[in-house]
């Protein structure tokens, strides 16, 4: 079982829709999570990070962590064509005194005008 799993998509939604992107993880060690956005032919850029269970909001983006079910989500409200990209979830855990970062495979999102 992969440490972090994502549905690769692609996910197509109309402009203005609410988008839900999800990841599951398998390890229960102390850890926290990040969401990255990657446009085609570009490097990933950090969107949000969350340390604990519950919600964290930043503009149109909300990150949610449910540690009991090992499920993390990113919601995008009022989606725009410019949100079309691949979204990567990443789990960060302390390993031997350093942060170990494990990425999911990414979900490709297309927002149709």
């Amino acid at each position, binding site marked *: 079982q992969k440490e*972090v799993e*994502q549905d*690769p998509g692609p996910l197509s939604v109309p402009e203005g829709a609410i988008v839900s992107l999800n990841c599951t993880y398998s390890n229960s060690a102390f850890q*926290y999570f*990040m969401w*990255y956005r990657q446009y085609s*032919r*570009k*490097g*990933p*850029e*950090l969107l949000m*990070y969350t340390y604990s269970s519950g919600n964290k909001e930043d503009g149109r983006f909300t990150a949610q962590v449910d540690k009991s079910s090992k499920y993390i989500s990113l919601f995008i409200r009022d989606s725009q064509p410019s949100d079309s990209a691949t979204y*990567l979830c*990443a789990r*960060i855990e302390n*390993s*031997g005194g*350093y*942060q*170990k*970062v*494990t*990425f*999911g*495979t*990414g979900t490709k999102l297309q927002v149709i005008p």
Partner: protein
Amino acid sequence: DAGVTQSPTHLIKTRGQQVTLRCSPKSGHDTVSWYQQALGQGPQFIFQYYEEEERQRGNFPDRFSGHQYPNYSSELNVNALLLGDSALYLCASSLGGSDTQYFGPGTRLTVL
């Protein structure tokens, strides 16, 4: 403020050859991590350099090696290239033990 830069942008090599990729970290950052991203996959951690030493390493063979210079810039070297080494190679920089990494645009390596 310059972000993370990588060179070259694209590279084509043949099997068995050796390649060197370069990375300049974001201004003020002292830690450089390298990732391999195959098509349709998430980035896979190769190794991390801090104070000119390899601090941690992912599950990659010894054909993958690196170096960090006193100005914090870094190189990734891959020997005896295989077709499966074709991927986007990403460099990410951070400050010390921070988990907030800033990625460069990557170098796309094609092995024929």
